[in-house]
Structure formats: C-alpha cells, structure tokens
C-alpha cells in the first residue's frame, strides 16, 4: 500500500479541512447531504483526476503534490522511466503519515527556495535543470543520469550499471535535443515570442517556422504541398463548409499566377458561407441550444424560444469580422453596452441559453462553469465545493464569479411587427435583481450558504482589473412595451382586427350577419379602448398625472373600456344563443356590463399591462466581459486561437481545449500558440486575418498522405508533418449532399426550422432546431454536437452512417436530380460526376471502373446508381 498512499497524498486545501472531512458518500445515505454533494461533483468531474481520490483519503500531513509529479512527467515526457515515475523519486518510503524527502527531494526543495528568494522561476523543470549535473545522494552518478537510467537520485544504494549509464547518456543527448525550450505560462499575459530562424520556404510564414523548428529537432520531414484539387477542396470546406464547384476548380487549376491560392482564400473568407461555417463551430463552443422542454406540458425547461436571433448574430458578426473582444462583450453584456440596440442585445442569447426552469442553481452553475470553460479553458467548476486542487483558484473566487451573474434573468421583449412574444420576440437577459446577494455555499451545497455575502470578482491569479460600475438604462429597456414601435404594432394589430371583422361582415349573410356585426362592434370597441388608454399614457409621459386634460382622457378611457365590455358581452350572448348551458351566464354578464356602463363617469380604468424593469443594470457582467476581453487576460486569446487551430488541423495545440490548467495537457507548440494569440490581438481580435495566416501556411497546405519514416517517429502526427485526414462534420455532409446536387437553399438566418424536416427542406443544417432531444436524426447519426457540452466533436465512423447515406431516399433523390444535370456522353458524365461530388477529376483507373459500370445495365439506372456510389465514397465524407 505504500504506493497507493503516496499517490493519494495531496495538497490539502483549507476549506476542505475547515468544513469537515466527511467527503466520502455514506453508502446508506442516512441523513447525509449525499445527493447534493454528488451533484457538485458531477459538474466538477471534468479532468479532476486525483482530486476525488485526495478527498476520499484525506491525509492532513500531505507533503507531495501530484502536480509536481505531473510536472516532472510533462517535462521529461517519454524520457522518464516508469521505475522512477513515482513519489519515491523525492520522498522516502511511507513511514506512517510522514513522507519525508530523500536527499534528492531535499535538494530540490532547497534549490526551489533559493530560486524563489532570487525572484527567479522556481518550477520543477527549472529546479531539475539547475541540479541535473549534481549528485544528490553522493553515489557518483549525476542526478539526471540516475533518473534517465531508472534509478533513484536520492538513494545512494540504488546505482545504475555501466551499461545502463551508457544508454542513459545517449538518452540525455536525445533529450537535450528535444527538451522544451519555451516556457508554457498560461497565466502570464501573452507576449509575442521570437520566431525561430528557419531557412527556405518554411521560414516565410511564422507558423511554419515554429513547426519546422520542431520538425528539425525530431528528424521529421514535412510532406510536400498537396495537389491543387485536394487543397482547393480542403480550404473551401474548411472556410465555408461546402465543396468547390467545378467552375471554381477549373478556374483555380488554370490560374498560374503566384497569387492564385491567396485569391481563393480571400474569396472564401469574404463569402457569407464563412460566417455560417465558423458560426456553427462557435455554436459548439458556446453551447448553442434552441428551446427544449416538456412538450405535452407546454413548458420551456431549457434555453428559450427565439434564441435563433443569437445564432444569426454569431453568423453576422463573423461575416463582418467583428473583433472577438467585442463579441465577448456583446454576448455577456450586450444589454448593458447597448440597451436600445436589439442587434446587439440579441447576442445575450449566449446567457439566455443557460436558462433552466427546474433549477436556478443549475442555471447559474452552468453559466459560470461553461463561461470559464469556453473563454478561459478553466475548470472553475472544481472550485464550487472546495479550492481548486490543481489551479490557483479558490472556492471563494468561484462564488465571486457567480455573483457576476446572480442578478441576471431572462425575458422576452417584443419585436417590431409582432405583439405576441410567443410567436416571435427577442429573448435576452437583464439584471432583474440588482441587489441579489451571493453566498459561498459550504461544500457547494445550496442548503448551507455561508453568512457573508460576496462581492463579484474574478480569479486573482488571472490578473487584470475588474471594475464594476452600474449602468443606467434607457426608457426603452426599462419599459420596453412603451416603445413607440410596440405601440404602433398594438394599434396596427387592433386596426387589423377591425379590418378583418369588416371583411367578414361584408361576406356574411343570414344568421351570421348579425354575429359578424357584433364581432365588428367588439373589435372596434377594443381598438377604441386601446387608443383611449394610450392617450392617457401619452399625457402621463409628458409629466401630467392630474389636471383637466388628464381627467378627461382618463374618463374617456374608462368609458371606452365600459363600451368594450358591453360589446364583448353582446357578442358572447349572440354566440351563446341556443346553448342553454352558456346563455344564462352570458346574459348575466351582459346585464352587469350594461349596468356598469350606466354608472357615473369615472377616471378609474384598467391600465395597459406594461412591465417595468429595474432602471439600472449592475454593470457586473460588463466589467467581467471587459476583463475577459482585455489584452492582459492571459487566457482569452490563447484559448480562442487554440479552438481555431483545432478546427483547421483536426487537432489542437493544447489538447483538451477546455483545460489550460495544471490538470490539462501541455501544448505541443506553446510558442506557436502564443504567437497566434499575439497576432489575434494585434489585428484587433479579428479572426479573418488569422484564418488567412493559417490556411496560407505550408503546414496547412501539406499533403495528408502518410510517410513511413515520419510515421515511425511521430505516428500521431503531433508535430504536424502532414495534414491529418479528417471526417467531415455532420452538417457539412448534409449541406454538401444538397449543394453538389444543386439543391441547397442558401437563404440565411431566421427562426429555427423543425428538426424533423431536414430531409424535405433544403436549407443549411445550422438553421434547423437543435436542442436536447430535438436534433435532426440524420445529423445525430453523424455525431452532431451535444448541445450540453461539445468543446470538441467526436467524429466516429459507424454502420448507422453507412445506412443513412446508402438507404436514404434523399440521397437517391439527389442522385436523380444531379444525373439530369450532367452531360450525356459516358466519359464526360463520369468526369462531371467526380468533379461535382468529390471536387476532383477521376483517375484513369477510376474512369475505367466507372465506364464499365455505366455499361452494366439500364443507362438511366446505372447513371443514378453511380452517383449514389460516389455519395457513399469515403472521400465524400472526408477531408484529405
């Protein structure tokens, strides 16, 4: 058990000890807040490896920190022999609860203290470097050689053999060659690193220079440029989510100018398709979800209706190349920066999406957790119940972040042209309770709030300034139903009702004529009443709440409302004629309405139901958004470019795009990441220049074909010695199918389309409803994003997908439609089919196969059948 107890020893965090140690769920659940804890752990689950074990076997006398051990492994990588990848490297074997340092451990601590005192970097790699040539245990072998040979540098009795020493020396040489030279400091503001000097074509684009530097160290030979057809399809799909047309292919192939490729890239990033393609990517990261709920109960349980306006904002913003910093501000605080601009307020759909009818706790929890994951790649969720075990964030800081969002709620404002917010509206956030207090929840349990309310704040270790200033709101935001546009719409709606009634009356005959007459009267009375009430409002808005003008207007309103009641009651009586059950009540209602109408004139009337919202917003979210979008924030730009890189190359620079913390994985190219982050900020946070820099790099333009020598050295292509072949995303497969057949409807934006209509309506896939359990079946078969969490897609290849392409009537239909558009002669048919579907000409062998196939039976059938085969071709669903 020595190893086990060593492993479990962890840094013991203050609040855990301070708030009790009963963290193991009691199996009988008796009286323990069992469930609450497990709920908290659920959200803290992400990559909290070790954390739980530490909690379960709490050892108050902790001395080794798992992160230290991890640092060592990160630094030495595969050069660290398993035999010393162990706490015994620095510690003596378990002696009760004590784990004292051995000679090496003592020296590591000592040098660490010295470095710290001198104000130098004192992390594990630095310390190790400093003392690598020393011999801590005095057995005649240097620390580093002992480690590399798999022996303990702190144990004089553990000595390598001569042969082991020899191989360790060779390992040391190899390690020195590839050892990390650039320090990964994710919590330090980005500073542009110097670009390595690389001769030749790989020295031109800094991206290539950074990659070539690693190639050189590892004896990797990058692949040559991909052939032009492959390249064109790759970049076109990558930037627009659609393949190139044959015309675009031919134009590119025949353009021999040196700027041919750059021109293509310019054309693609300028295309509105770019915003749709990359909008869908960011929708993954920002957890886009349409409303979901319990249909039968007519309950909205998650997200909100009309949240598609935020989706359109994403597409529009990307197409306009709005700065990422500005996008952050608009999504988190659009209602505070531009309360009167619905084009900006719609961006707060980002927050609206977290709405959870069933639990405000979970709503706020998701908001904090996912905001920190999406923009900061920080597993803040771990700190909901205790200080973060790996990253320098406290539990208190978690609740300060929560306080940023505590006041906010969701509402639906009216939009021009529609008075019924059920049909359309602007779902947005606002600070509903500016004074709402936030308490630290002890052990994350909402039944046990701490006593002192917490001010909003941001994690100290991420730096920056966070200054909250309340934002005074405009009239339109405070009383949105008083906006002139809304009043116009109300009047129009009332006028329309009258006009409809007039039309109906003109057509009605016989018995129905009387009813139509009464309906018209009711509609007119309704309109008059509305007008009268609005007249009072107008006087009041001018500041007069009494006086003869006001009195007269109020009396008019009262009279109009009485008339409206009588008209409605008359109609009800007429409609109830012949219905013995309803008639008496209707008659009684009419009598009382008429009686009320006879009463003396009064200034008492029913006011319009105008919601009034708080006059100020706390400014907390704006302060937070500004802190996020500040160039001094160390993570924002790094995290963003990592997401972008992932979607260009199929692999991220920091694997595990949602965790830049100690418990995440190390970047493969930290200097490159910092370079890209610096570039993003330098260009005013605009993404298009970054895309351009990436897709014009040699790295991006490489062939994806494997190469045996490289495969041996780097089988996983971690160092990007080729382009990685990828499977297309679900949306790209469906859109491409429709597009190459000439059927894709490129209409942009608008309300989410019924997800069950995906095989009948030929709009782009991102416009269809996507919510928990409301996703297009075809897309789900191709691993579409889980709306709850999808920082990185997982593209599998499954037989259900094969069925969905092969047995899909839509595919057969597209084949039929496309066949009709292709040339008659067999040779031209085959070429055109390949160019349309796979965006390349067939090879000679392929042509021979296909020509033979076309002759295999009924001409029309074989032609369509060939297209079906190409729709099922591996390349159709892949990028090479």
């Amino acid at each position, binding site marked *: 058990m020595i190893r086990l107890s060593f492993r479990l020893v962890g840094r013991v965090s203050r609040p855990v000890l301070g708030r009790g140690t009963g963290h193991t769920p009691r199996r009988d659940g008796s009286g323990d807040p069992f469930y609450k804890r497990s709920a908290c752990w659920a959200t803290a689950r*992400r990559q909290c490896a070790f*954390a739980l074990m530490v909690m379960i076997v709490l050892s108050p006398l902790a001395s080794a920190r798992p992160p230290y051990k991890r640092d060592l492994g990160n630094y030495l990588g595969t050069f660290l022999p398993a035999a010393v990848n162990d706490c015994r490297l620095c510690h003596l074997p378990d002696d009760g609860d004590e784990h004292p340092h051995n000679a090496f451990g003592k020296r590591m601590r000592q040098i660490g203290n010295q470095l710290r005192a001198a104000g130098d970097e004192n992390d594990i790699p630095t310390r190790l470097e400093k003392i690598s040539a020393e011999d801590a245990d005095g057995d005649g072998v240097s620390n580093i050689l002992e480690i590399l040979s798999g022996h303990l540098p702190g144990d004089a009795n553990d000595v390598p053999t001569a042969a082991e020493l020899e191989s360790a020396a060779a390992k040391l040489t190899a390690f020195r060659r590839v050892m990390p030279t650039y320090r990964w400091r994710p919590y330090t503001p980005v500073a542009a690193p110097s670009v390595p000097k690389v001769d030749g074509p790989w020295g031109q684009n800094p991206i290539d220079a950074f990659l070539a530097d690693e190639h050189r160290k590892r004896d990797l030979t990058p692949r040559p440029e991909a052939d032009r057809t492959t390249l064109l399809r790759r970049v076109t799909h990558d930037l627009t989510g659609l393949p190139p047309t044959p015309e675009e292919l031919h134009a590119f192939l025949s353009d021999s100018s040196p700027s041919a490729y750059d021109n293509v890239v310019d054309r693609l990033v300028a295309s509105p398709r770019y915003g749709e393609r990359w909008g869908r990517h960011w929708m993954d990261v920002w957890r886009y979800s349409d409303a979901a709920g319990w249909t039968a109960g007519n309950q909205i349980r998650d997200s909100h209706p009309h949240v598609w306006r935020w989706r359109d904002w994403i597409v529009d913003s990307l197409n306009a190349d709005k700065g990422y910093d500005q996008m952050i501000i608009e999504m988190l605080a659009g209602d505070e920066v531009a309360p009167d601009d619905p084009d900006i307020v719609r961006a707060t759909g980002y927050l609206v999406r977290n709405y959870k009818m069933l639990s405000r706790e979970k709503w706020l929890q998701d908001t904090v957790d996912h905001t920190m994951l999406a923009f900061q790649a920080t597993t803040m969720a771990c700190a909901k119940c205790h200080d973060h075990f790996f990253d320098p964030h406290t539990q208190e800081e978690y609740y300060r972040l929560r306080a940023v969002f505590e006041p906010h709620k969701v509402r639906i404002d009216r939009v021009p042209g529609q008075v019924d917010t059920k049909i359309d509206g602007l779902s947005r956030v606002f600070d509903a309770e500016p004074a709402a207090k936030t308490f630290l929840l002890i052990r994350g349990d909402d039944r046990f709030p701490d006593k002192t309310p917490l001010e909003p704040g941001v994690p100290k270790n991420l730096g920056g300034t966070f200054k909250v200033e309340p934002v005074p709101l405009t009239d339109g935001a405070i009383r949105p139903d008083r906006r002139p546009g809304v009043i116009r719409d109300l009047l129009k709606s009332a006028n329309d009702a009258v006009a409809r009634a007039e039309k109906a009356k003109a057509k009605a005959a016989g018995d129905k004529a009387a009813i139509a007459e009464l309906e018209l009267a009711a509609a007119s009375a309704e309109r008059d009443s509305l007008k009268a009430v609005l007249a009072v409002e107008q006087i009041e808005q001018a500041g007069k709440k009494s006086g003869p003008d006001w009195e007269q207007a109020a009396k008019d309103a009262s009279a109009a409302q009485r008339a409206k009641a009588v008209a409605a009651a008359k109609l009800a009586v007429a409609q109830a004629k012949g219905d013995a059950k309803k008639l008496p009540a209707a008659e009684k209602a009419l009598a009382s309405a008429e009686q009320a109408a006879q009463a003396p004139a009064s200034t008492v009337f029913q006011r319009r139901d105008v919601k009034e919202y708080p006059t100020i917003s706390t400014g907390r979210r704006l302060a937070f958004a500004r802190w996020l979008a500040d160039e001094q924030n160390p993570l924002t730009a790094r995290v963003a470019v990592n997401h972008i890189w992932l979607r260009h190359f199929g692999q991220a620079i920091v694997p595990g795009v949602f965790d830049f913390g100690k418990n995440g994985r190390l970047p493969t190219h930290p200097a490159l990441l910092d370079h890209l982050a610096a570039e993003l900020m330098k260009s005013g946070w605009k993404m298009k220049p970054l895309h351009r820099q990436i897709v014009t790099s040699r790295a991006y333009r490489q062939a994806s074909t494997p190469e045996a020598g490289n495969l041996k050295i780097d089988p996983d292509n971690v160092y990007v010695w080729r382009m990685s072949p990828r499977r297309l995303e679900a949306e790209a497969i469906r859109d491409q199918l429709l597009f190459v057949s000439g059927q894709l409807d490129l209409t942009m934006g608008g309300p989410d389309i019924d997800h069950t209509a995906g095989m009948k309506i030929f709009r782009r896939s991102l416009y269809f409803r996507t919510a928990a359990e409301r996703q297009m079946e075809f897309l789900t078969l191709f691993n579409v994003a889980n709306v709850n969490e999808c920082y990185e897609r997982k593209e599998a290849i499954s037989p259900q997908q094969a069925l969905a392409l092969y047995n899909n009537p839509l595919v057969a239909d597209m084949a039929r439609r496309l066949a009709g558009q292709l040339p008659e002669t067999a040779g031209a048919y085959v070429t055109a089919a390949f160019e349309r579907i796979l965006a390349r000409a067939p090879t000679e062998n392929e042509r021979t196969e296909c020509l033979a196939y076309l002759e295999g039976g009924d001409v029309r059938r074989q032609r369509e059948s060939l297209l079906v085969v190409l729709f099922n071709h*591996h390349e159709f669903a892949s990028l090479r």
Partner: protein
Amino acid sequence: MTLSNRGCGRTRRSFLADTGLGFTGLALGAMMFRDKARADQTPPDGRPHFAPKAKNVIWIFMCGGVSHLESFDPKLELNRYHGRNIADTPYAEAAQRERNDIIGGNPNHGNRRVLMGLATGVTRHGKSGLLVGDWWRHTGARADDIAVVRSMWTTHNDHGAMLQYHTGRHPREGPFPTIGSWTCYGLGTLNQNLPEYVVLGMPPGDCCGGEWAHGSGYLGPEFAGVRLNPESTDPLPYVRPLQGRSTEQQQSELSLLGRLNSLAGIDYPHDPQLRARIRAYELAYGMQTEVPETFAFDREPAHIRELYGMTGGPTVRFGRQCLAARRLVERGVRFVQLFHGGGGGGEWDAHSGIRANHGRLSSEVDRPIAGLLTDLKQRGMLDETLVVWGTEFGRSPGAEGGDGRDHHPQAFCAWLAGGGIKGGVIHGQTDPIGFHSVGGRHYVTDIHATVLHQLGLDPQRLEIPGRQRLAIDRGRPIMEIIA
C-alpha cells in the same frame, strides 16, 4: 477529431482488425477512441477484468413506478391497518423519519398518512416461499430462478428517477452514461451484424430522461443504445434497402464502392478511417437483412409465441418485445433494454385507481416476462444471460386520494435472474409497512455494479480518460445474491 492522429494507427487493435479477428468497423471506430488514453487512466481493452458469468444482459424496466407493496415485497400489515392513520399504528415512527436526502414529496399529492391495504391478493411461490402479489403470479412461479432485492432506494421523488435508475445521477445533472453504455464500453461487441446495445419499447418522456435513459453521456455516441422498433417495418433508421433497389444492384453498387475506395486509398496505406468506413459498409449491409430477420417472429413455433403471450390478449405487444430480446441475445447483442409503459412520466404512475392501473399493466407484462425466463432456461441461455427487472421507485404505503399510491423513493424492489445470480433468494428488507428499506440498503448503482461484476467487469476499474467518476457512479456488487 481525426482518428488517425488520435488513435494509435499501428496498434494491436488495428492489427486485429486487419487480420479480421472478429472486430467490426463499429468496434474499430469505438476502439480508436479508446486508444486516446491518458497515461494515468486505463480504458478497458474489450476484455473482461476477470472470468465472467454472464455474456448478455436483458434489462427490463417498468416506467412510472411499480408498487413494491403489491409486487415483490407485499406487506400484510397494510391489510391489517387499512384505513388507519399511520400515526395510530405501531409504525408511526416510520413516517416521522422523512429522509432529507430525498427531494421533497409533492404536497399536491396529499399527506399519504392513511394506510391502504393491498389492492391484490398475495401468494407464496417456490422453495423460498417468496411472497408475491397476484398481479405477478406468472413471474412469481419462476421464484426459484430469481433473486429479489427488496431494499432499493433512490433520491429523486419524481419520474426523473427513471433516468437516475440508469445513470445513477439525479436528472438535473444531465446526461451520464447508462449501464448499457458502460457494458458496451467495457466489453465491446459480440456480433457482426447488429448494434451492441439495443433498446426496445418506448423510453421515458422528455420530462424524465427521454433518450438519455439509454444514452451514453460522455462515453460518446457509439455507445448509446440503438432503438429498434419491432412493431415497425423500419426498426432502425434507414435499415431497409430502398424500394426498387434489388439485391444484385446493391451488390454491384457496394462492390463498385469497395473498388473505388481502394483506388482512392492507394496513397493512404493502412488508413484507419478508410478501413473503418469499409467495415462500416460491410456491417451495414449485414444489418439490412439481420435486423428485419431478428424481428421475423413468424419463424418461431406456435408454442413459443404462446409462451410469450403473443397469440392474443393484452400480452401481445410486450410479448413481442420479450421474444425480440431473446432473439437479439441469440444473435450476440450484448445489452437489450426493454421499456414498458414509457412516454411521459410512465404508465405505472398510479396516483389513483391503482387496482385498475396496476391490474391492467401487469396483465400486459407478467406472462411475457415469465415466458422469457422459461424460454431462456429451456434453451440453456439463462446461464449466460442476466435478466434484470426494475422500476424507478416504489409506491407509498399510505393512500393518495383513497385508491392510489404516491411516489416512494424510500423503498422499492428489483430482481435479477440468470447469469450467475442465485435463484430463490430474497435480499434486503423493508419495515413491516414497506415504508423504509431497513436492511442492506442499495442505491440503484449497486444493481449496475452487480451486472458489471457478472459480466466480468470491475466497476472500480471502468475508466475513461478525462472523466472523473464518483464512488456513487460505480456502486458495489450485491455479493449476497451472486452464486
């Protein structure tokens, strides 16, 4: 995500796939994900951790909450104190011990303090003298094959507990891997032409778990249950060949596809993605015939269909599902999930008129379930097939509205049979009115752990890189019922 650069292209697994050792495209794709191991967590390699007792699981779930009191844990004390307020009985203390780990009962359902006698008769069955409500007399007759666990408990007091029963997590925590997905993740597939994890019947409604109740959460979509509908002519999306496309045409198309894919793969030797796709088409081709063939019930002799109650009456529908389950297991499907009474909060939700509700619903399922056990046994399949019966919670000993029973997460029962489970065993107990589980209480994941244990998997060792599992997710095997 790229398979090639994430998966280890040239590992033992791709070698196996290359040599065709029973690894299908589906499994191949799945395994490539598993290859993304982090050094400190070991995902399963598709082999059991220790010698398994069971190979397959049939997991039968009753949606809405079956009364434990009138099924496998009858309480005659309720008849004795029928109509009395619980405070006026010797068991007054039980009601005062409302448990704070259970999310509160719905006050709209009344106070449920007046005890209600059993709405059905009871009979002792088998050598163990298992007391069973007469609504379940056919299943009761199999008493010597089953092990009843009478001391289940859960934490959610509404029908989201259906999701919780399958994931171990409260529904508001969202989707987590279900027991079926863990099974497939841990062991992989047994067959060439069918999914590993098949779902029959209507899952709970979207209020209460919906598709998540057979989902795979963070394990990824390839481990989610695939719904097959034995009632439909299209039991799996797109499984039927297109109309007018003959077998010869299919063969010539797929063969051209194979040749074109190989030609296009010349520059990509050993490309795992291309290989996965080729295998996916092979498996898909097989599924086109295998799935409909599995549901060709007319190939079963009349006496077998009779055994499942498929020849008429209320049992026809569920009988068909039970028989489908057996036929799926025969064809190597690892995990078959049967839902009964799904949609919305579940049909078994007898807030009123429990006699009519439970009487009708049990008449639909009792005979088919007993028939399934009998059939599995007579074919020798019960040795390696683990059958699990359960529901999300029990029902209250006190009456709701005079003739119904309310939700009751404090106590309910489940039973297991076959796959190395002891027959004729009663494990755990409730107090004399069935209010609280009192002896050897088991949270729902203990059933999961028992299933995994019988399949040769140690729940403690079932990991996926990048995810931290809780002790509560894993549960502990109920060793007392294991042979």
